[in-house]
C-alpha cells in the first residue's frame, strides 16, 4: 500500500479511537437529546407561573380602586404610606408603591421594597403597569381596546420571494439557532482536529519517533498522511453532527413545538458546513504543521497556535452585533479573511443572505492561503522538525524559507 495512505489510515484510526474524540462526537447530539427530554419533562409538570405575591399601594391621586388582581399578583390599597410601611415590615405585603398627586403630569411612581435588587422584576412592572393603565382608561374606552393598548403590537414578519409568494425560508431567530450552534461546533471541531495534529507532531518530535518515520517515508508523505488522516476523522465528526441535526430537530419540533418548530436549516447549509469544515480544517492543519515544526514541543506549539485560533472565534464574540447589524461591511471582511471565514460564513447564513461573490471570494482566499502556507510549511518542516529543544528566531525561519 502507498505509504501516505498507510500514515493516513494510522492517523485516522488513532484519532477516532481517542476518548476525547468519541466523547465530543457523541456528546453533542446526546446533550441536545437530553435538553429536549428535560424540556418535555419540565413543561409537563410545571406551567409558566409567577410566584403569588401581594403588593401594597397608596393612592394619593385617587381613582385607582379597580383591577387589583393582576394574574398572581394581588394589589392592596393603604390609606397612608406609614400604614403601608408597617405592613411591609410585618411581612403582610411584599412591597408597595405610591401614586403621587402629580402622577398624571410626571408619571413618577415610588416603589418601596425590602429586597436589594437591580430593578423590579418584569412581572411586577407589568402588573403595576396594567393596573395603572386599566384604572386610567376604565369607563373611557371599551374593554377590548384596553386589552389592545396593553399589548398593541404582535409583529409577524413574512418573507416573500421575488415572484410574490411566501418564501419557504422565513429567516428570523428560528433560522439563526442552527447556524449559531454550528458555528461554535465548527470552531471547536477545527481547533480540536488541528490540536490533535499539533500534539501528534509534538509527541513524535519529543520522543524522536520522527527520525524513524523520516528514515522510512519522505517529509511530504508524512505531512500529507497526517493532515488527511486527522482531517478525515474531523470530517466524520462534523458529518455525525450534520446528520443528527435534522433528525433531532424533527424530534424536538414534534414534541416541544412552539419556537423549536420555527427552527429550520438555511438553504445549502449542510453543503456549506461541510465545505467550510474542509477548507477551515485544511488551513488550520497546515498552520499547525508549521507551528509544530518550529516549536520545541507540543506545549509550546499549543500556545503558539492560540494566536491563529483567536481570529477563528471572532465571529462568535460579535454574534449579537451580527444579529442586529447584518449589513455592516465588517462582516464581509471577516467572511473573506481566511482565519475567520469558516465560522463567519456559517453564522451569517443564519442572519442574512450572503451574496454569491462573497462566498466565491471567501473560498478562493481560503484555498490560496492553504496552498501558500502548505508550500512554505514543506520548506521549513524538515529543517526544524529535527531541531529539538530550541525554537528558531523569526529571522532564522525567514532565512530558511528563502534557502529551503
Amino acid at each position, binding site marked *: *500500500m502507498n*505509504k501516505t495512505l*498507510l*500514515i493516513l489510515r*494510522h492517523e485516522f484510526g*488513532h484519532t477516532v479511537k481517542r476518548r476525547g474524540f468519541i466523547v465530543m462526537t457523541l456528546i453533542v447530539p446526546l446533550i441536545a437529546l437530553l435538553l429536549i427530554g428535560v424540556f418535555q419533562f419540565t413543561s409537563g409538570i410545571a406551567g409558566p407561573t409567577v410566584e403569588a405575591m401581594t403588593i401594597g399601594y397608596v393612592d394619593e391621586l385617587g381613582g385607582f380602586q379597580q383591577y387589583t388582581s393582576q394574574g398572581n399578583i394581588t394589589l392592596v390599597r393603604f390609606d397612608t404610606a406609614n400604614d403601608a410601611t408597617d405592613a411591609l415590615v410585618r411581612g403582610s405585603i411584599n412591597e408597595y408603591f405610591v401614586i403621587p398627586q402629580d402622577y398624571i403630569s410626571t408619571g413618577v411612581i415610588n416603589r418601596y421594597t425590602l429586597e436589594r435588587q437591580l430593578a423590579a422584576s418584569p412581572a411586577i412592572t407589568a402588573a403595576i403597569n396594567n393596573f395603572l393603565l386599566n384604572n386610567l382608561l376604565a369607563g373611557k374606552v371599551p374593554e377590548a381596546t384596553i386589552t389592545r393598548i396593553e399589548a398593541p403590537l404582535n409583529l409577524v414578519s413574512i418573507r416573500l420571494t421575488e415572484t410574490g409568494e411566501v418564501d419557504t425560508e422565513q429567516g428570523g431567530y428560528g433560522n439563526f439557532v442552527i447556524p449559531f450552534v454550528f458555528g461554535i461546533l465548527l470552531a471547536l471541531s477545527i481547533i480540536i482536529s488541528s490540536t490533535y495534529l499539533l500534539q501528534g507532531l509534538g*509527541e*513524535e518530535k*519529543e*520522543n*524522536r*519517533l520522527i*527520525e*524513524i*518515520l*523520516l*528514515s*522510512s*517515508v*519522505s517529509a511530504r508523505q508524512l505531512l500529507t498522511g497526517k493532515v488527511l488522516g486527522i482531517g478525515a476523522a474531523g470530517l466524520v465528526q462534523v458529518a455525525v453532527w450534520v446528520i443528527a441535526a435534522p433528525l433531532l430537530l424533527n424530534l424536538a419540533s414534534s414534541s416541544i413545538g412552539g419556537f423549536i418548530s420555527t427552527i429550520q436549516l438555511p438553504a445549502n447549509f449542510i453543503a456549506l458546513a461541510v465545505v467550510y469544515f474542509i477548507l477551515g480544517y485544511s488551513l488550520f492543519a497546515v498552520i499547525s504543521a508549521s507551528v509544530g515544526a518550529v516549536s520545541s514541543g507540543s506545549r509550546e506549539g499549543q500556545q503558539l497556535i492560540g494566536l491563529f485560533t483567536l481570529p477563528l472565534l471572532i465571529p462568535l464574540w460579535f454574534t449579537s452585533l451580527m444579529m442586529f447589524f447584518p449589513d455592516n461591511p465588517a462582516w464581509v471582511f471577516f467572511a473573506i479573511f481566511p482565519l475567520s471565514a469558516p465560522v463567519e460564513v456559517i453564522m451569517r447564513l443564519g442572519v442574512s443572505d450572503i451574496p454569491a461573490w462573497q462566498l466565491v471570494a471567501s473560498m478562493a482566499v481560503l484555498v490560496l492561503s492553504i496552498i501558500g502556507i502548505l508550500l512554505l510549511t514543506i520548506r521549513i518542516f*524538515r529543517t526544524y522538525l*529535527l531541531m529539538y529543544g530550541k525554537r528558531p528566531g523569526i529571522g*532564522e525561519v525567514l532565512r530558511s524559507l528563502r534557502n529551503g
Partner: protein
Amino acid sequence: MVAVEVSHITKSFTDKVAVDDLSFSVAQGEIFGLIGPNGAGKTTTIRMMMDILKPDSGDVTILGEKLSEATKNKLGYLPEERGLYRKMRVLDSIIYLASLKGVDARSAEEKANELLNQTGMLSHKAKKIEELSRGMGQIIQFIVSIIHDPELVVLDEPFAGLDPVNTELLKGMLLDLRNQGKALILSTHQMNEIEELSDRILMINHGRSVLYGNLAEIKSKYRSNSVLLEFEGELGEVPGVTGKRTHKGYVELVLDGNTTSQQVLERLVSRGMVINRFEVATPPLNEIFLRLVGKNRE
C-alpha cells in the same frame, strides 16, 4: 558490494561545523564502528546517511544509489534517542512501523512474533509501550529496526541503557546479522563497548576523521610493546624487560626495542614458572583516541 559510500560530506549549523569533509565506506557483511566522543558529529553523520538531514556538500550513496523511497525500505535505523507511540500496543507499533518499510501486515506480524520470542519479549506484546521499562522499549525499537530484513542497519548508541543480559543478547543478534551478509554501522561514544564486534572503525572528533581502517591493523599499529602477565610465584629480573607496572591481579611488562613478546614468553617458560595468562597488550580504543587527540591539542 559497498553498502555505504560517503564522500566529502560537510554540514554546518548556525553556530558550528558539525561534520567537516568526512569520507568513508562500509562493505556488506561487516560491522563498522563509528566512534568518537559526545558531540563529535556521529549523529549528524548518520542523519545525513538516513536522508533526514541534507549535507551542505558531498555525496552519500546507500546500496549503490542515492537514497530514495525504495532504498529506505532496505535500511534499518535505531536513533540515538528512543521513543515510540506511548499509548500504542507493542505488536501494533511494530506492525505499523514495519508497514512504513513496505512489509505487509501478515508477514510483519509473523516476523514480529518471531523476534519478540527470540528476545524474550513475547509475553509483553499486548502491553502498551508506556508500560514497558526503558530497556524493554529499546529492544522493541531494535526489533523495529531489523524487522524488514534490511541490507543496512544503522544503530546509534545501541547498548546505552541495556543491562548485561540484553547487551549480550543484542551482540549475538548483531553478529548473526553480520553473518547473513548485512552491513551494520554501530555508533557510540563508549568506544570499548564495540571493540570486540567491529571489523573496521572510523574514529571522529570535531567532525573530522581521526582514525579510519581495519580494527586489528589499527590496534597492532598502536601496540605499546608490552605484555600482560598473570602468574604464580616470584618474577625476578627478566632480560629485555625495561619496566614493570603492577595492576590488580596482573603485571604489565614493558619490553625494550629489541625483544619480542615471544622471546619473553620463552624465557619465562624456561624458568618453569606457572603462567595463567600471557597477552600481548593492545591499547583499548579510548586510549588510542586520547593519544591521538592529545597529540592534536595545542
